[in-house]
C-alpha cells in the first residue's frame, strides 16, 4: 500500500467527533451524545473503541478530522468580531437560499402528497439540507452527483429547476424525466445528476463508474482539462451492503476522483444504525481501504462545507477518494408512508434543536453577514418559487400515450416495424389495447 502518498493530506491523527457544544482533540472528553440511539442497551460508547494508543500502530492512520484551519476557527467562533469568518456574504446567502429551497420544497411535497397529487414512495430530506448544500454548492456544473431515492434536494441543489422536479413528482410530461421516473428516479444529463436509484447501494458503483470515466477521459482520451469529480450520496444502512465495500476498494485502488458521502441519519426505516452495524463508526471504514475517513457534524453546513472543500479538491487534484461521514438526521419519517413511531421523541428534539437552517441563520446574523430583512426576503422569494412550481406542475399535461414506448432502447427503432410498415414506437396507436402492446 502506498501509504507515503497520503501523508501530505493528513492533518490530524486522532479522531475527532465534532459537535456544536464543545470541541476538543482529546477523545476522553468526547460527549457520548453524538451517537444517540433509542435502543438503550446498544448505546454506543466511543471511548471503548477509540483509545488514542490504538491508532499509533503500524499502519498510518488516514483519519482526518476537520481541518486545522477549521479547528482554529472553531475556537474563534465565540468571538465573531475577531474576523476569520468561514464564509463570505455571497456564499452564505447562496447556501442559505439553497437550504431554504430544499426545506420549503419538501414541505410542499408532503402537502401535495396528502392531497393526492403525488403518489408512490416519496422520501423527504427535511433536516439533512446541510449535507446537500454543503457539498453540492461547491461543485461545478460538469461534476456529477449520484443520489438515492431521497433525491429531491440533491436535484435542486445541483440546479434542476424546482418546477421540473415538482412536475416530475406529479407525473407530468414537463418533469425532468417526463414523468417516467417519479420521486425516486430523478435524472438530468444537463446538470449531471445521475439518479435517483431505488435500491440501496446501487448508486455507489455507478458513481465509481462516473469517476472512472472522468479519469479515463483525462488519461486515456487525453482530455487534459477533464477534472470532473463525482460525489456519491448514500445512507448509513448502505454501509452494510457489499457494494459499498467493493467500491471503496476499487476507488482507492485506482485513485478515482470521487467523494463518498455518508448521510448517517441513524435510521433505516425503523432499524437503528446501532442495531444493524457491528462497528457504527462509518468513517473508520475509509482507512481500512486506504483512503481518508472523516466524520463531520452534518447539521452544520459550514463544517460540512469545509470538509467538502478539502475532499473535492483532493479528488480534483487526482489524489483519490475520500469517505466523509456526515452525522445528520431526518426530521420526518423514512417516507411519507412511514408512521415514524420507533424513534425516540427526545432524540428528535435533540436534532430539531440543531436545525441547520436555524444555525446558519444565526451565524449570518451574528457575524453581520446578512440582516433579518435580507433573509426574510430570500424566504419569501423561495416560497413564491415553490408555489409557482406547484402551479406549473398542476397546469402541465399528463404524458401522451405514445410516451409509454419511448426510450426503452437508445435505438428508436428498438421495437421494430409494425404491420403497416412504420416503426412501432412512432405510431401513437401502438398503445391501443393497453397492455397488448
Amino acid at each position: 500500500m502506498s501509504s507515503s502518498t497520503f501523508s501530505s493530506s493528513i492533518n490530524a491523527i486522532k479522531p475527532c467527533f465534532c459537535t456544536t457544544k464543545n470541541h476538543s482533540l482529546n477523545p476522553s472528553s468526547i460527549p457520548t451524545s453524538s451517537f444517540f440511539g433509542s435502543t438503550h442497551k446498544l448505546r454506543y460508547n466511543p471511548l471503548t473503541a477509540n483509545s488514542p494508543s490504538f491508532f499509533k500502530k503500524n499502519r498510518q492512520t488516514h483519519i482526518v478530522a476537520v481541518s486545522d484551519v477549521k479547528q482554529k476557527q472553531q475556537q474563534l467562533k465565540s468571538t465573531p468580531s475577531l474576523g476569520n469568518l468561514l464564509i463570505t456574504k455571497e456564499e452564505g446567502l447562496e447556501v442559505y437560499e439553497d437550504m431554504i429551497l430544499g426545506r420549503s420544497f419538501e414541505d410542499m411535497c408532503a402537502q401535495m402528497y396528502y392531497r393526492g397529487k403525488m403518489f408512490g414512495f416519496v422520501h423527504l430530506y427535511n433536516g439533512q439540507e446541510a449535507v446537500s448544500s454543503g457539498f453540492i454548492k461547491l461543485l461545478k456544473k460538469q461534476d456529477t452527483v449520484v443520489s438515492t431515492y431521497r433525491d429531491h434536494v440533491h436535484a435542486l441543489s445541483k440546479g434542476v429547476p424546482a418546477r421540473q422536479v415538482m412536475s416530475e413528482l406529479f407525473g407530468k410530461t414537463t418533469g425532468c424525466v417526463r414523468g417516467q421516473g417519479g420521486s425516486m428516479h430523478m435524472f438530468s444529463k444537463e446538470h449531471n445528476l445521475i439518479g435517483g436509484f431505488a435500491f440501496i447501494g446501487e448508486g455507489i458503483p455507478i458513481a465509481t463508474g462516473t469517476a472512472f470515466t472522468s479519469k479515463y477521459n483525462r488519461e486515456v482520451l487525453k482530455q487534459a482539462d477533464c477534472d470532473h469529480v463525482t460525489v456519491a450520496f448514500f445512507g448509513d444502512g448502505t454501509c452494510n451492503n457489499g457494494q459499498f465495500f467493493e467500491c471503496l476498494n476499487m476507488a482507492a485502488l485506482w485513485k478515482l476522483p470521487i467523494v463518498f458521502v455518508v448521510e448517517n441519519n441513524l435510521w433505516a426505516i425503523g432499524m437503528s444504525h446501532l442495531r444493524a452495524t457491528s462497528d457504527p463508526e462509518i468513517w473508520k471504514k475509509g482507512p481500512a481501504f486506504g483512503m481518508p475517513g472523516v466524520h463531520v457534524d452534518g447539521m452544520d453546513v459550514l463544517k460540512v462545507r469545509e470538509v467538502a472543500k478539502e475532499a473535492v479538491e483532493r479528488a480534483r487534484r487526482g489524489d483519490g477518494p475520500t469517505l466523509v461521514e456526515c452525522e445528520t438526521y431526518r426530521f420526518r419519517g423514512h417516507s411519507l408512508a412511514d408512521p415514524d413511531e420507533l424513534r425516540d421523541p427526545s432524540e428528535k428534539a435533540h436534532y430539531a434543536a440543531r436545525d441547520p437552517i436555524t444555525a446558519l441563520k444565526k451565524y449570518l446574523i451574528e457575524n453581520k453577514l446578512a440582516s433579518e430583512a435580507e433573509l426574510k426576503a430570500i424566504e419569501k422569494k423561495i416560497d413564491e418559487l415553490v408555489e409557482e412550481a406547484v402551479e406549473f406542475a398542476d397546469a402541465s399535461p399528463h404524458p401522451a400515450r405514445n410516451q409509454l414506448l419511448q426510450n426503452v432502447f437508445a435505438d428508436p427503432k428498438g421495437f421494430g416495424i409494425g404491420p403497416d410498415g412504420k416503426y412501432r414506437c412512432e405510431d401513437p396507436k401502438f398503445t391501443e389495447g393497453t397492455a397488448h402492446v
Partner: protein
Amino acid sequence: MLGIVRQRVSSVPTLQRMLYASKSFSSAAKEMTVRDALNSALDEEMSADPKVFLMGEEVGDYQGAYKITKGLLEKYGPQRVLDTPITEAGFAGIGVGAAYYGLRPVVEFMTFNFSMQAIDHIINSAAKSNYMSAGQISVPIVFRGPNGAAAGVGAQHSQCYAAWYGSCPGLKVLTPYSSEDARGLLKAAIRDPDPVVFLENELLYGESFPVSAEALNSDFCLPIGKAKIEREGKDLTITAYSKMVGHALKAAEVLAKEGISAEVINLLSIRPLDRAAINASVRKTNRLVTVEEAFSQNGVGAEICASVVEESFEYLDAPVERIAGADVPMPYAANLERMAVPQVDDIVRAAKRTCFRSV
C-alpha cells in the same frame, strides 16, 4: 408433506356445495385479509416448529414493512425474528446456510425486486444444492415477499419475477391469490423440504376474502403443484396468477353477461406448473387466454401456450391469446402506469377475439 391436504376443486357456490357447507360448518363464512392470513400462517408454523425463524429487513421492531410479520417479534423474540442490515446477498446466503443444517428460515425480501441482489444464493446455493450434492443436502427455505407492480412506485419496484424463478429447476414457485391460498400455500411452503419462492402481491395484502373453517385449522395446507379452478365455464379458459386472478374473475363476469362462459384457472403454482389441469380445461373449452402482469417474452403465458400446443393442439379452436404487461420498464406517471398493466377490458377483448366475436 405433513398436514391435511384437500383438493380444492371449485369455489363456485352451487346448491350442492352450499348444502355440503351447511352440513359441516355452522358459523357464517369468516373474512380475512391476505395480510392476516399470512401473519397467522407464519405464527402457527413458528409455534409448531421451533426450527422455523424469520429473517429480513424491518420484520421485527417495525412489525414488517407491510405489516405481515406484525406481533411476531413480541411473541417469539429477537432470536427467531431477526432484523437484518440492508444486505440481501448476505442474509439470503446466511438463510441458505442455516437451511443446509436443518433450520427452516423464512427470508423476507421487502420486494422481490431486491431479491436480484440475492439471486445468486437463491439459484446457485439454494435451488441447485440438492442436485449438486446428490441428495445429501436439502434446503428447506422459503423466500417470500411482495412481487409485481404496486401503485406509482416506478420501474425499479414493479417487476414481476414469476417467470425468472419459474424457469429454474430445483425451486418451487408459488403465487397465492386469496387469503385461503395465502394461508395454505405458505404453510405448505414452510413445511416443504425444498427451496420455495413465495410471490405475494402488495395490492392484495389489504383485500379481504372469505375463508372456510377448515382453512383456519392450523394444519391446513394446499398441495404445491396444483392449480385451482376459480370459476367453471365452457366457452374458454382464462389462466392467471396473483392479482390478475381478480381481474380475470371480473372479466368473466362481464363476459357472462354477453353470453360467454369463461373458466378461470388460478395457477397457484408456477413451478411445478399444473399442466394437467390447464390441458384438461383447454380440452373442455377449446380456447385459451393467458393473463399475467409480467413482461410477455419468455413469460408464464408463453410456457402455458407451449404446453397446450404440445399436448392439446387438436383441441384448440382458436390461437392462444396472451395478455401481459407492456414490454417497457414501469413508468411512474399514473396514466402511463395504467396502460402498462393489464386491465379487465384487455382480458374481455382478448376473450372475445378467441371466441371470434367482434371487439
